[in-house]
């Protein structure tokens, strides 16, 4: 069952009405063809109107949709072969971060991603996609292996943020994130990242220091959750709507800031009903980038990444 978002309700109601009319027309042998066509046209227009004028706050809801494609599923859809790998070799295997090795169009890749669940039970197991330090250390372990064997890295970002909890602090959440930022910057294999849902702050960036960053059309990337920003700066947690506008977090905004390199289009209203087509477009992008990076020397790949982040910032001299 796909969850219906608040702003989608008028569309769903119209389609339900159409179904009812169709059933009525069949059973009662009444001529309703014209009426049905008229409503179908209206529904199509309404859908267009709603989805092409989504507010940032509504996009956040799509980005968090429980049926949105998750990292593990996308790995399997994109790769011909995929072998999951586990554990940070220090403390435990964090279910909020998944990873493994596979092939994409014959090319070897190490894939890493945040992992959310699709229902409450799975989400509790995945800690709602909020990693502990051991999750970031697992990611780093896999990236270091990729570097060792000259395998390109692909990461999928989808987290509300790194987990703010007792154990996470005790085991050095800040240190784990910081180390990943530094180590990713010095990798000489290409790193390609996609924000597939929520890009939540430092917890997202910790697997996102990449050569190329792509945003799925209905994904968001933010320095703080709109809710967090609303309660701290706007002094009112209910102003998340306003905060999500001010923070400039949509795929178009992030492109505008020069942080994302491209936007992967999604079906109107989001990918939650169509994972396959999305995975095809993502695969196309990965294949094309990997082909380009094959022609670039390892040290130049590292320098390109360094330069990209070095130039980020807006100020007055």
């Amino acid at each position, binding site marked *: 069952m796909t969850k219906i978002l608040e702003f989608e309700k008028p569309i769903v109601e119209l389609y339900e009405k159409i179904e009812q009319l169709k059933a009525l027309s069949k059973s009662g042998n009444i001529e309703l063809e014209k009426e049905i066509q008229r409503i179908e046209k209206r529904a199509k227009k309404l859908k267009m109107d709603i989805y092409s004028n989504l507010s940032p706050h509504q996009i956040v809801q799509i980005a968090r949709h429980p049926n949105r494609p998750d990292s593990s599923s996308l790995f399997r859809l994109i790769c011909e072969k995929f072998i999951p790998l586990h554990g940070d070799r220090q403390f435990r295997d964090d279910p909020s971060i998944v990873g493994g090795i596979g092939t994409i169009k014959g090319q070897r890749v190490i894939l890493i991603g945040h992992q959310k669940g699709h229902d409450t039970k799975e989400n509790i197991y995945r800690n709602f996609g909020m990693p502990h330090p051991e999750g970031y250390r697992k990611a780093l372990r896999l990236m270091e292996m990729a570097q060792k064997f000259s395998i390109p890295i692909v990461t999928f970002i989808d987290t509300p943020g*790194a*987990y*703010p*909890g*007792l154990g*996470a*602090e*005790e*085991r*050095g*959440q*800040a*240190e784990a*994130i*910081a*180390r990943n*930022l*530094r*180590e990713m*910057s*010095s990798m000489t294999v290409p790193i390609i990242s996609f924000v597939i849902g929520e890009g939540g*702050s*430092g917890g997202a*960036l*910790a697997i*996102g*220091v990449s050569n190329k960053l792509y945003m799925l059309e209905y994904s968001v*990337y*933010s*320095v*703080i959750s709109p809710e*967090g*920003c609303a309660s*701290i*700066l*706007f*002094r009112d947690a209910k102003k998340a709507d306003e*905060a999500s506008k*001010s*923070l*400039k*977090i949509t795929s178009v905004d*992030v492109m505008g*800031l020069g*942080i994302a390199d491209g936007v992967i289009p999604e079906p109107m209203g989001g990918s939650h009903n169509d994972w396959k087509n999305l995975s095809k477009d993502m695969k196309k992008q990965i294949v094309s980038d990997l082909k380009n990076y094959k022609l670039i020397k390892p040290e130049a790949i590292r320098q390109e*990444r*360094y330069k990209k*982040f*070095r130039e*980020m*910032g*807006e*100020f*007055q*001299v």
Partner: protein
Amino acid sequence: MSIIDWFAKKQKAPSKAERLNIPGDLWIKCPSCSEVLFTKDLEVNYKVCNHCNFHFRLSPEERLLYLFDKNSFVESDSNLKPIDFLKFKDTQQYSSRIKNAQQKSKKHEAVTIGQASINNKMVNLAIMDFFFLGGSMGSVVGEKITKIIEAAVENQHPLIIFTMSGGARMQEGLLSLMQMAKTSSALALLSEKKVPYITVLCDPTTGGTSASFAMLGDIQIAEPGALISFAGPRVIEQTIRQKLPDGFQKSEFLLEHGMVDMVTSRPDLKEILFDLVTLLDPREEVKK
């Protein structure tokens, strides 16, 4: 007079300072132990309470005065200024927040960088300032931290950063988050050049600052009692719906959990810093 009236009268009684008509800045109450301290004594004692060892927060100027050779500091890149490129408005315009902070601090931003000497040993230096918009890291803070790291890569003198920051500056959106990657990337270059990097974690060091350059020191020193964390205590309490144990996320807690090398009181800091930079610096071996 009932006992309640008696208490009310007692509470309203003028304070000691008011009674004697002493100017307000001669005395200061320690926020930790409530002892009334003579300001002059406090300043002589590195702004550390001599009753309970509470470390008052310092401005960059005070740190320079206490820890580095007199008049040795040469500031760089003080001309970089923040801009409100997102036209961010919460309860206040970001541009007016900047203006207020600049007027109050007489500085352009929340970090001061440059070179100074410590017992005649040259070091590169960055000192953050919590009094300027909570020491938050926006584009300018990230740029200046990166510039001083690059200077250290170039001149090979050790780098010391005093961190004192609530984290990323929300009003600069995602670009402030990217400063974490920018500063950490520069530190990778410094590490390859084998230039020593020491962080002094001051109260508070949290969020995006702790999750980037603050936690990447070869040696990490914490000032006593400082709050050092990724997530703030309030956020954690709201998430786990439990009261946090005493001392959680304080310097001593971090030492116990292996996150810092030492907790050092301010009066001892200068000698420790001098010893560490000379002991670590490979160029000192060559000199001998």
